[in-house]
């Protein structure tokens, strides 16, 4: 793995792992899938390829943040607000 990008990849993994604690299907489920997804690409050496994969990982981070926000928003809305006619 190219050296300067190694730090980025590890940081991405840690961030995703942190986000996965609240995953609806359970943090264990998330961690297993996360690990196998990263392991599948462990032999990639082309820096361009690695950058693309890291970008995809950041995209997943944004998706998770949106998922958590929507879940909370919908729960609170359902609990506290009248259903719209």
């Amino acid at each position, binding site marked *: 793995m190219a050296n300067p990008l190694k730090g980025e990849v590890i*940081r991405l993994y*840690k*961030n995703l792992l*942190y*986000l996965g604690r609240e995953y609806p299907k359970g943090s264990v489920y998330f961690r297993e899938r996360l690990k196998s997804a990263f392991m599948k690409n462990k032999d990639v050496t082309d820096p361009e390829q690695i950058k693309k994969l890291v970008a995809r990982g950041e995209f997943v*981070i944004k998706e998770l*943040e949106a998922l*958590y*926000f929507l879940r*909370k*928003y919908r729960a*609170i*809305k359902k*609990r*506290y*607000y009248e259903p719209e006619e």
Partner: protein
Amino acid sequence: MHSNRYCNRIIVLPFSVLLEIRVKPDNSGVVTDGVKHSMNPFCEIAVEEAVKLKEKKLIKEVVAVSCGPQQSQETIRTALAMGADRGIHVEVAGKDYETLGPLQVSKIMAALAKKEDAQLIILGKQAIDDDCNQTGQMTAALLDWPQGTFASEVSLDGDKVKVVREIDGGLETIKISTPAVLTADLRLNTPRYATLPNIMKAKKKKIANVKPADLGVDLTSRLEVLKVEEPPQRQAGVKVETVEDLVGKLKETGRI
């Protein structure tokens, strides 16, 4: 010439709420030992609004305050990770924590607001564990400050605050002067997630420790909890084949 940085300090008050509710065996309350806390959703929105105002350079400093046991520090850390500058943890534990309600919290907030010379206090409209919806209003009353509650839109205009409030039947726009108390409603904004890098950065920010006695606040409660019980279990439904069966069943259970 008026400086547009008139507003110096905002205090946000994120409550922590229990993630899991179990009634104690003796029906005297809810189990709090060892239960994970998390920031009240409405308070996340309040913190977000304060941080947004700072990012727009309309205010200089955001202070996050939380009252409670050690676990409240987690909530303050989350607020710091979202962008607050420093935190104040008002230590309330044990018996005092069990009886800590909106009246006590607002007394603490009033004392802190004077001590810290704050221009705005922002909090969530209500905590989802006790659903009181009182702390903001009581704090404003104790300080004799105007209040903009159920805010779904906040804008600063000179030394006044324009607040669009969610009320029954629609929206109400008011203009209040600072210093003021605002409470955040669901549609005020979309709170950012406290990601790991932000949490790491926030570790450098300071959290001061304060005791209610230092602020001269008396925590005795005027309320006494008589009993806490779970709602009745939902009875399983019964399926019927025909309308006659339905009528029969309704007559059986004395409904008609």
